[in-house]
């Protein structure tokens, strides 16, 4: 059955048709939610709520965009709401990361290297969380999720030109945030 048909049936309240759509998009929606939250349980909750919002809002869906794009937009907006609430509650500390970088890579084993890489990832993601919302969203969509410029343009309802300039600015700002942790040759400081 085609996606459009599944959407039409879901609009009429057909749960089996909606189940097929959920099966198709659950991984993508969950991954998107996870990119924003970095927490599996929370991403699962956000993904479920995004699907509920989509199901209850299907009557308003007029096929002006792809169903997937519309669903991602709902997920992104829901994640943005979550991030706004979360940012009111606490700020992520970055200072803790400095000490954990003092590792001589030549001497470490493969497992330790993986741990170092994981710490670096955490640092970059933590810095990402401190960025303004619009930069955080565009970096998540492009650099974590790998959305194309066109897809981002459709999900965020902005022009491809704006996608280009905003992404450029977001990457620059993230690099500036990471500057205190970046070494002479790039990458993280070896202390």
């Amino acid at each position, binding site marked *: 059955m085609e996606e459009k048909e599944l959407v039409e049936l879901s609009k009429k309240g057909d749960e089996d048709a909606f189940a097929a759509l*959920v099966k198709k998009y659950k991984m993508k929606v969950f991954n998107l939610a*996870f990119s924003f939250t970095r927490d599996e349980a929370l991403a699962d909750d956000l993904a479920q709520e995004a699907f*509920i919002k989509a199901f209850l809002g299907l009557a308003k869906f007029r096929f002006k965009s792809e169903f997937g794009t519309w669903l991602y937009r709902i997920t992104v907006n829901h994640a943005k709401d979550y991030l706004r609430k979360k940012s009111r509650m606490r700020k992520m500390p970055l200072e803790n990361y400095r000490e954990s970088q003092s590792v001589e890579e030549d001497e470490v084993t493969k497992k330790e290297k993986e741990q170092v890489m994981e710490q670096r990832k955490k640092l*970059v993601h933590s810095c990402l969380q401190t960025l303004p919302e619009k930069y955080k969203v565009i970096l998540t969509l492009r*650099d974590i999720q790998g959305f194309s410029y066109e897809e981002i343009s459709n999900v965020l309802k902005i022009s491809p030109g704006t996608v280009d300039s905003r992404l450029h600015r977001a*990457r620059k700002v993230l690099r500036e945030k990471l500057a205190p942790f970046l070494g002479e040759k*790039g990458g993280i400081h070896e202390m």
Partner: protein
Amino acid sequence: MKCKKAERLLLRSFDGLLKTEEREELGKHLESCLSCQRKREDYQFMLDALKEKDFPEPRAYFWERLQAKLKERKRPEPLLLWKQWGMRAIPLSLLLIILLSAVLVFSFFQKKEELSQTGILLFQNSNPIQETKPLLEAEKFEDRNMMIIFTSLGEKTDSRRYSP
């Protein structure tokens, strides 16, 4: 090429959006510019760290859990029903209040107007001037005054007129 332009091209190069001549131009600049080489390494590190190779999976029974929540949401909540009825009751109550007010105002103006003694006499085809005749014809000044005083004392009552 200036470093500012080189940085713009560098960032676009990560998305594979450069034309051949732009790529060559950037390559030449990078060969000679240490600052931009450093930027390239920083950005490369940053983008590698952002890329997620292994995403976790959603918890088991995703659809089943979602289906249960959907059923829960679709069931009409008593509070929601009350709100819906409440919203309908507001204009109805307003209409009732307006109607009641109109009835009250109308009945107030419809209140029977009390006729004065003169009016009653006129209504009975009697001459009200005759009533005051004794007052006007009184010979003594004191008698006339007394009549006027008695009349004024009984002003608020039904028998406010001096009756000889």
